Each structure stands twice: as C-alpha cells, then as structure tokens.
C-alpha cells in the first residue's frame, strides 16, 4: 500500500513493559516525525529524523527511543511504559514542508 502506515492501530500494555510502535512510508521521504496527541496539548513532537541514521529529540523525548536504519521505517520504542504515555501517537513524513500523517496508534498503559 502506498503512503504511510502505522502498526498496531490499538495497543494496551502494562506499566513497565517495553512497547514498539511501527511506522512505514513508501514515498522515500527524507524527513520523518513522531508526535503524541493529548487533550489540551495538541500535537507534540517526540523525535524526528532527517535521514537514515540521523535522529534528534523533539519537545517531549523522555522515555522514548527511536531508530532509523532504513529510510522507510521509523519505529518508536517506549522502553518502560508509564501511564503518562497513554496517548495517541502519530507518525509523519514530509516533503516540501507538507506533512503526511499515518492513521495513528492509540496506546493505553494500564
């Protein structure tokens, strides 16, 4: 499928567990991003990447790890999930400034 996909779409986990959210894009866009969306906070940037093997922290990176070994994939890992990480997570890629978003992953940490 062309575009940007995320998996899983829904995830329930427990406090302290490691969770990885997957993001895949088919356009070969250089830039990719991870956001979290919470009521009252809009979209907050967690991490971003300019190319394979180049990543940098965004506004709220604590508790998250990213990697980008291939241009098309940009997984986000919660090393030890906490309740405060319950949120909707969006992956995006961009070209010429326009951001293309995945469908989001709703993560619940119990």
């Amino acid at each position, binding site marked *: 499928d062309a575009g940007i996909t995320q998996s899983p779409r829904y995830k329930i986990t427990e406090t302290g567990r490691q969770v990885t959210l997957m993001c895949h894009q088919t356009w070969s866009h250089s*830039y990719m*991003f991870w956001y979290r969306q919470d009521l*009252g*906070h*809009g*979209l907050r*940037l967690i991490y*971003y990447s*300019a190319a394979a093997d180049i990543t*940098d922290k*965004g506004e709220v990176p604590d508790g998250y790890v990213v990697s980008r070994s291939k241009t098309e994939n940009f997984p986000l890992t919660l090393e030890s999930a906490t309740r405060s990480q319950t949120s*909707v997570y*969006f992956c*995006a890629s*961009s070209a010429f*400034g*326009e*951001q293309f*978003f995945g*469908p*989001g992953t709703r993560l619940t940490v119990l």
Partner: protein
Amino acid sequence: AQTVTQSQPEMSVQEAETVTLSCTYDTSENNYYLFWYKQPPSRQMILVIRQEAYKQQNATENRFSVNFQKAAKSFSLKISDSQLGDTAMYFCAFLSMKTSYDKVIFGPGTSLSVIP
C-alpha cells in the same frame, strides 16, 4: 522561538453557513509556510490549505480560503457553505524556511462542529 496560537478551542456553525477560524503566530523570520490541517473523528490528519509567506495572494482550495495578514501575523481559515463532513479539529501550523528538518509547529487546535 516560534509559537502558534489558536484562541478558539471550540466553535460551531450551522450547515451551509460560513465560519472563520483564527490563528496567530509569532516569528521574526520573513520566509515561512503556514498550513491548516484537518483532523476528523477518524483521526486522520489531512492538509487543507497552505500559504507561502512571500505570496501576497491568499490561498484558496474550493470552499476553504485563508486571510493571510503578514504584518499582523494572522492566518485565519474561512470555510464557506459548511458541510457536516467539515466537523473536525483544525490545526494551524507554521514552518520556517530556515529549518533544515521540516519541523512544523502546530497550534493547539480548534474543534469545529457543523450543526445540521
């Protein structure tokens, strides 16, 4: 640092009427992009319209148009002939042309409800 403000957390409009969503931003730069994104209940974020700051002409996409006031740092979105499918969160966003990472700054959003 740039900031984007949307002063209307919630708005409503009657079907077929016109509504304007407000956005202001703060920047010292002269060249940048501005965007409006729409997020319907399905959660999918969709680009509605974009404006390049160097263009004086206001962007238009069908029923959606903007009023870009560069000196006032204002970027409002007008939706004409509102339809039920316009019910969504709307995010105003700013992108500096100086950045090399395409990092967009989003406003907090305005929740728009179209009433039948």
